[in-house]
């Protein structure tokens, strides 16, 4: 019988061969799908916390994320069969006029690791596209990223468009180098995360609110 702690450790270490092998063994052992998923999400939470404590760099998180992705591919059919879906859908993108996407990509990676279904719209995304994607995918959260002070107005316009559309239950969170908690409040966003790892906790919090 596979010890799920070993699976979590393999994911956290970024050992994708071992992680995939253990996932397949766990499936053969007919371990509960939810427990397998929880082990994987727990591993990503753990590496995220290590990152927050400056114990690892981003490459270590990315390698762990790849290991999780490959394990998830093996687990996916079992989850479907068991009726287990992602926690919810999150749409993410960099606002109109801004092409920077490193931060946005890191947040998307962390959200996927937390078992959110992530729709990544890329960079230079108009308010209309954000709204359309949120409706189309039934998103609970939209994440906006901006690196430039000159594109902060586009962030404000996007928040206005999303809030103005009154999509039931939809939350908007923002982040990026020039963004502050104060700015988030000023433009009516539901939350602000200073880094990628905090963005997971933030979304869990605003969705639960």
């Amino acid at each position, binding site marked *: 019988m596979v010890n799920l702690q070993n699976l979590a450790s393999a994911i956290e270490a970024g050992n994708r061969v071992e992680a995939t092998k253990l996932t397949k063994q766990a499936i053969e052992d007919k371990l509960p799908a939810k427990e397998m998923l929880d082990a994987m999400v727990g591993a990503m939470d753990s590496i995220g916390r290590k990152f927050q404590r400056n114990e690892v760099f981003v490459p270590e998180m990315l390698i762990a994320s790849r290991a999780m992705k490959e394990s998830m591919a093996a687990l996916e059919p079992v989850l479907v069969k068991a009726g287990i879906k992602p926690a919810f859908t999150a749409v993410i993108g960099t606002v109109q006029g801004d092409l920077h996407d*490193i931060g946005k990509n890191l947040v998307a990676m962390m959200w996927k690791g937390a078992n959110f279904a992530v729709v990544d719209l890329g960079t230079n995304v108009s308010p209309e596209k954000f709204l359309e994607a949120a409706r189309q995918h039934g998103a609970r959260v939209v994440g906006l990223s901006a690196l430039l002070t000159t594109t902060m107005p586009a962030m404000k316009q996007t928040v206005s468009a999303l809030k103005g559309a009154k999509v039931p239950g939809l939350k908007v969170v923002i982040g990026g180098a020039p963004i502050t908690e104060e700015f988030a409040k000023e433009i009516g966003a539901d939350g602000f995360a200073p880094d990628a790892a905090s963005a997971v906790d933030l979304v869990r919090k605003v969705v639960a609110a």
Partner: protein
Amino acid sequence: MSENIPLTRYAALAINNEQDLCFGRAPKPLRTRRGIVIGGGEVYPELNFTLPAISVEQSNHREICRQYRQIISSALTRAVELEASGLVVEFETLPPMTENPQWAIEITKILADAMEDAYAKDGLRSALRITPNDTREFIRPPMMRSGEKWERMLATFEGCAAAGAELLSIESVGGKEVHDDALTMCDLGAVIFALCVMGVRDMQFLWTHVTGMAREQGAISAGDTACGFGNTAMVLAEQKLIPRVFAAVVRAVTAVRSLVAYECGAVGPGKDCGYENSILKAITGYPMSMEGKTAACAHLSRVGNIAAATCDTWSNESVQNVRLLGGMAPTCYLEQLVYDCRLMNRALSHGRESSLMLRDWMVESDEGLDPQAYVLSPASAIAIARAIVAERDYYHSGKAAALRAVELLREGARGGRLKIGAREMPYLDRMQHAVESLPEAEDAFIGQMMDVVDLGKFVPKDYGL
């Protein structure tokens, strides 16, 4: 246009001795229209500024022009009051201005006219640098060699040069499609592919055009920067996302890419945010702009003093036009730059020994505290420059720069001259192993990389691949 620009490959250094790599003096100084001689024994302030948060659109055009008029008027007045002997002003456009060249041209004219007035009335000698945005990346995958974005970028260069901009620069982005992911994965092979295969090919294409344009307009082909590469690495390291040793090695490799502008006819001053400029000054002998402590308004860094050690113009990178207690921010930063330059110029006026003493203090105050500073010391810059020019092609230059930088960092740490964090040390071995594992032949390397990079992110034929 491009066929007329011969490519110069540097096989030797213009500055071989670290005692000759110093602020204010370049073997090939540059004389501007109003008689500033950059690299001729004096360091000049280079002021840069940007708008506060405002949508750059037609409805705000009048307000935007008013802001630029106010910025330049106040800055020039203060430069005269402080008796600055010369000034470089950089107008780095915002993307909508490159998209609408007539806006950039109009603002250029506002700045150029004010600078001409200050020269006529007060004798203030100045030169205007125009830096359009590399908007080619606004299409994904980018169209690097044709299309509306490319045409508008060239139109911005041409129109702004005709309107009075004298120095032509850009922060080009060729290779960034692969480099961003390479940084977050700390994948040095992919970094070398992005900079020394993709980047250099784009630089050759771009800079033959810019140099041709400069010659047609009677302007100066100044230089590029690997800002989107080396400075992205620096910012990621500052945010503790990647190791500083990795950012330091990336910096060394960026010199291979930025060098191509000079091979294609650029003559400096290299763009301020290219911290690799100390390496490029050693190779080319052209004057360089640098930024450091006085650019904290734009971004933080670990190289605040050491960056000034080899500068010929000293820049604040960018500051928003907001009110501070001392006045509007660009005016305040102009004043800081003037005082920084006064000090360096005072040392220069006292002769070689004094200027080297100040240079060494600036170097010593930073170099032991951060690997990114360590690779920028005059000694390191010359060592990396020598490794670059010793190789026969860009790929091998990139590998050599990386390995030399790793070696320098290792020696620095071993000798107790450089502090490297414990969790960063294993990256030295990883980087060395990564480079030593790359194929010997460039063709084999390209073939290997084309199998693993995301080909959806760039158009290979736009890079001649």
